[in-house]
């Protein structure tokens, strides 16, 4: 291996790592706020990528019907729980209807990458809070294990629905731009720049949101002390919903960013999500900067192992978690499930 190859591998690793970092941030956030290990995180990546590719090809994405169906389901579920009807009509019925209508009108016009990105975000993101309302909010007081089992069930259901709505064929989209930067032998591709730029910007935005806005602080407060948050009037359900909105948006954006790089299938998301989960675990599901660093490490480890032993690349990445777990369990005494 010479330095050029090493540089390419590092670049690959950091670009993939940036995506894992976004997803790991989202996993840590959802877990801290709701105690849900968000297994379906990767499915949002797949849905985001496939929806974007469909829009680019000028066809109506199947996720539209998933959006509409889940909206109606969330509405019926809310009726059963006797929630305020007007708010639900707006968020569960009017919003998906408007998104479906806009998409239906916009698709034949092939409105370009930016509009497709926004449309994809609008179509896929609301699926996450609907899932929260139907699947997780009624379980809010359940143990972490029960929530995890529910999350696995949601993942399997979403993967099946992905097959129904997008079919077994994979999709790929054009890069956002053909620009590339060359320094000597070293070339940085346009899409890699987009990924690094957008993930960087998104992290800065998240930092600002959590550090400086009342809503962001309220989410953090829920993560730090759920009872304390309720006592100042921060609703657990609203916080959970908001965390899921962020998770849905982050997953969707990640999918949009990678679909020009790799062919995305209905079931591609899981392994991507699992690698982000590895990073989140290394950060103990608690530290945001730790998760980002660990994710970059996972990305670089993956790209080097795919060069040296590509058949074992997944094995190597997932094995990396074992020494970390050993180190953690030796360093810290066992922590109770409900210990704050």
């Amino acid at each position, binding site marked *: 291996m010479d330095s050029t190859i090493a540089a390419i591998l590092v670049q690959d690793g950091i670009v993939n790592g940036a995506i894992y970092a976004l997803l790991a941030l989202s996993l840590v956030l959802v877990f801290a706020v709701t105690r849900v290990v968000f297994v379906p995180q990767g499915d949002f990546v797949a849905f985001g990528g496939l929806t974007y590719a469909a829009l680019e090809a000028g066809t109506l994405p199947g996720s539209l019907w998933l959006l509409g169906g889940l909206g109606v389901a969330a509405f019926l579920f809310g009726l059963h729980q006797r929630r305020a009807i007007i708010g639900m009509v707006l968020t569960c019925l009017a919003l998906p209807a408007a998104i479906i209508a806009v998409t239906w009108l916009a698709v034949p016009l092939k409105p370009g990458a930016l509009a497709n990105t926004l449309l994809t975000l609008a179509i896929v993101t609301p699926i996450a809070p609907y899932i929260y309302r139907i699947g997780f909010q009624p379980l809010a007081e359940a143990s972490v294990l029960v929530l995890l089992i529910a999350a696995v069930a949601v993942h399997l259901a979403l993967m099946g629905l992905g097959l129904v709505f997008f079919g077994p064929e994979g999709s790929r989209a054009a890069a956002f731009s053909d620009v590339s930067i060359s320094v000597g032998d070293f070339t940085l591709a346009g899409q890699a720049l987009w990924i690094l730029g957008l993930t960087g910007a998104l992290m800065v935005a998240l930092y600002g949101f959590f550090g400086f806005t009342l809503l962001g*602080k*309220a989410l953090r*407060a829920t993560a730090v*002390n759920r009872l*304390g948050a*309720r*006592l*100042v009037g*921060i609703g657990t359900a609203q916080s959970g919903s908001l965390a899921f909105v962020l998770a849905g948006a982050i997953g969707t954006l990640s999918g949009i960013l990678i679909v020009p790089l790799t062919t995305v299938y209905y079931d591609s998301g899981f392994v991507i999500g699992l690698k982000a989960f590895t990073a989140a675990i290394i950060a103990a599901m608690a530290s945001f900067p730790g998760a980002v660093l660990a994710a970059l490490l996972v990305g670089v480890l993956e790209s080097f192992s795919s060069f040296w032993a590509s058949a074992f690349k997944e094995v190597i990445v997932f094995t990396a978690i074992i020494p970390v777990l050993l180190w953690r369990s030796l360093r810290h005494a066992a922590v109770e499930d409900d210990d704050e």
Partner: protein
Amino acid sequence: MSVLVVEALAVSYGAIPAVEDISLAVPEGGLVTVIGPNGAGKSTLLNAIMGVLPSRGGLRFLGHDISALSVEARVQHGIALVPEKRELFATMSVADNLLLGGFRFGRRGAGGELDRVYSLFPRLRERHRQQAGTLSGGERQMLAMGRALMGKPRLLMLDEPSLGLAPLIVRDIFRIIADLRATGVAILLVEQNARAALAVADRGYVLETGRVTLEGDARTLAADPRIVEMYLGAATAR
């Protein structure tokens, strides 16, 4: 008019009753205390009024039936609880803890409350950048009270505010409680420190094994021989 009316309230943990048939009222601007030994159900009572624990019986706040409302909705009505374990946001700054105390008013905040809380607890102003988890026990209690006050409650419920604090700080805390009632907020104070509690309160209830065994004017209770013997110690009688 009463701010809070509790009628025949009962809470059970599974099949085991924790408190039963409790009726009490907190008048507007009044300071009512509930005293009693460890495990009598005092904290259970406050948690049930706040909605943290499910309960049976009647709960009315400013004339509204609140018994079916969530904790968050009760906060919106103007009830605040300073829990026994404080439940602060340990990894966030003192200033952020206070800011979130006013969450029910949204981004516009309660307006001027922060200055009032800082003048009530000057220590919090000095330490406003510090993480809540690094404060001393007394400062944590002050922060928990300050956070509750940021929501401009009509009823402030304090669960064992003197627990685990040095005597000098306990004196400070009770002085502040007395100051607070002068501002017009109704206070429901749960305490094991019966002497200090009865000294600041105008009405008292004695809770034993989940039931109210005595109630009356705080001064009368403080002189009641049964109370003197059980809670105040015979040596302090007169």
